[in-house]
């Protein structure tokens, strides 16, 4: 696209803004791009782009997959432009491109990997035409922004450029149907002994056949609608996969059948969610053109950073903080499932209030009735301390799972929650906190650790 004076002015001003922000030690991953688009609405169209663009979108796992792809490409000598330092909306993409361009708007790098917010697809794809477009999965998310999975599907599907080669999850019948005319490569995980015959989650947004609307039958289910399904009425079914993964948890390997060959990679995680993330990245890297050896070598050095998790041990008790993304029923259900499967006697501190809503308004709580709080109805979970303004709402939700009332304690202030822990005979204390309550969760953890230490000292004394 020809560059006009307006674009060049916007580029110069936004580059100056970026430099100024960096001089002051600020994160320049959003404002320069926002400014550039404000000054020149088709800025993304006029700026030169790298020859190869890889986009990654989806409800869950896009940041993890993006990081894996960037790290693997970098390990193989590629210099990759990316937006992992900041925003994944159009302003973030613009900021990344501003940082990766010359003063005349020429791209300095030949490859870019961009994480893209699902809802921003329609603002980004008219200008950014990914060579490869990856979608991890599509689920219900925030009721405010994302409404429902069909709405997000439609936004992405209608926006994707026809020339983009799609990398899709065959085990997710929602995202598997994106932009049906596009070239596509599917990946899936072969049947596992932990598979279920049907979904046990409250949310399954793929219950009926998209063609004839009869009830779908599942050959196996991993979680929610993730699995392999078919329609007994019309024959519609999950697509055939180009990359079929078989994880071996004892050997820590991920065997992948691709065409007629079998490829073996180091398995860098034991969680099903992250196996899907690793598989997504491998399918993309192989389609991009990396050899098996190159991908193997990259994954032998990769690790998934668990920045949303911490564990401290006091005596025989572990104090574990774990982020449980509020307003996102899928993310919370996954965390609840993880907690119930952990061995030992457990106590939980819940601190899931939306920290912004409770200051500015009153939180819309519908999502707690989509989340599988039923997973917390376990004998091994001896006490749940529900903290925050909305504690009565959570208590009601937990009572509806059948948890006896004597196991539930409401505490309006989060920092007071540790005082209600039993601590006796408890192997693990889980502090499950909302995304933006991480700092408060650390305070709650420190207080819990102090209480445990005091108890140990008293016993010794």
């Amino acid at each position: 696209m020809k560059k006009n004076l307006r674009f060049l002015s916007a580029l110069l001003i936004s580059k100056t803004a970026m430099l100024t922000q960096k001089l002051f030690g600020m994160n320049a991953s959003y404002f320069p791009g926002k400014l550039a688009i404000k000054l020149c609405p088709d800025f993304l169209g006029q700026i030169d782009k790298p020859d190869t663009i890889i986009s990654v979108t989806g409800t869950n796992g896009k940041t993890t997959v993006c990081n894996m792809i960037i790290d693997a490409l970098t390990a193989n000598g590629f210099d990759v432009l990316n937006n992992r330092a900041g925003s994944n909306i159009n302003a973030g993409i613009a900021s990344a491109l501003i940082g990766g361009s010359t003063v005349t708007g020429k791209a300095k790098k030949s490859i870019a990997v961009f994480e893209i917010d699902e809802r921003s697809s329609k603002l980004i794809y008219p200008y950014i035409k990914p060579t490869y477009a990856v979608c991890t999965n599509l689920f219900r998310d925030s009721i405010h922004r994302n409404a429902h999975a069909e709405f997000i599907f439609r936004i992405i599907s209608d926006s994707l450029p026809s020339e983009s080669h799609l990398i899709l999850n065959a085990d997710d019948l929602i995202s598997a149907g994106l932009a049906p005319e596009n070239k596509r490569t599917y990946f899936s995980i072969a049947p596992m002994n932990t598979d279920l015959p049907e979904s046990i989650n409250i949310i399954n947004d793929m219950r009926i056949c998209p063609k004839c609307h009869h009830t779908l039958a599942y050959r196996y289910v991993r979680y929610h609608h993730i699995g392999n399904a078919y329609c007994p009425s019309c024959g519609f079914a999950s697509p055939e996969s180009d990359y079929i993964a078989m994880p071996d948890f004892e050997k820590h390997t991920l065997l992948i059948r691709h065409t007629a060959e079998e490829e073996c990679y180091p398995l860098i995680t034991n969680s099903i969610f992250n196996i899907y993330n690793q598989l997504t990245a491998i399918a993309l890297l192989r389609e991009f053109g990396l050899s098996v050896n190159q991908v193997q070598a990259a994954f032998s050095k990769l690790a998934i950073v668990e920045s949303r998790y911490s564990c401290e041990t006091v005596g025989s008790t572990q104090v574990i903080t774990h982020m449980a993304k509020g307003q996102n029923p899928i993310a919370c259900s996954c965390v609840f499932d993880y907690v119930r499967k952990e061995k030992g006697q457990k106590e939980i501190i819940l601190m899931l209030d939306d920290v912004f809503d409770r200051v500015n308004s009153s939180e819309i709580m519908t999502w707690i009735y989509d989340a599988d709080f039923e997973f917390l109805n376990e004998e091994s979970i001896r006490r749940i301390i529900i903290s925050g303004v909305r504690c009565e709402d959570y208590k009601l939700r937990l009572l509806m799972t059948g948890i006896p009332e004597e196991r539930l304690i409401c505490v309006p202030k989060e920092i007071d929650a540790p005082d209600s822990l039993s601590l006796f005979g408890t192997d693990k204390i889980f502090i499950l906190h909302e995304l933006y309550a991480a700092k408060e969760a650390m305070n709650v953890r420190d207080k819990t650790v102090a209480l445990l230490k005091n108890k140990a000292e008293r016993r010794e004394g």
Partner: protein
Amino acid sequence: MDKSKKPIIVESLFPEIANLFGDRMNIHYLKECAAEAEFIDTSLTDPPVFLSREVSMIYMGPMTESQQALAIDALKPHKEKLVELIGRGCVFLLTGNAMEVFEAYIENEDGSRVEGLGIFPQHAKRDMLHRYNSLILGEYEGIRLVGFKAQFSHTYGDNSGQYFYKVIRGCGIHPSSMLEGLKENHFFGTYTVGPFLLLNPLFVKYLLSLLGIEKPVLAHEETIMASYRKRLAEFENEKLKY
């Protein structure tokens, strides 16, 4: 069980699609409050139970826009029966955009229309580019009602003779209306989600009495009332942002 009493049958329509925003829990909560009632789920491909048995209540929750068309297609052959049931005082509770299925039509942004059941003369308009999120406070027969709205569409047309409840704060069937929902006899349609019954225990008691339960008892009464009172106090605070 007193055999002279009419059995209470609650039919949930199309739970495989009409289940957004946690609203299926309206029925789960009713089950906990009305152990004597029979609860039946009817899928899109099943004949509705209200055709063959005398149901006391019909429930349908919010769904996606394309699924609204499926619900309309499934119910259209039974429009006359539905009109008869409304006239006879059968309880209907429709939450979220389920209410629009019973309206004349749903208009898309491009002017195209999805014909509804036409049981109510009002119509809905979609605006998929602008999601409407809000809190709502209202009153029905002396019961203060609270809830949330999260929707792409609004209903238009005069509902002054057929509204469910008066809005105190927030908006009714469209942003300029202070009359929420549609009501006819014991038909209650509302955009309010929450789930509506879990946010409004006093209305649950009223609903249970409509179903013929003489001394309604709320499940988890102390907790649900504490939750309701706290939210009501917040919603009645003039400083609260809606």
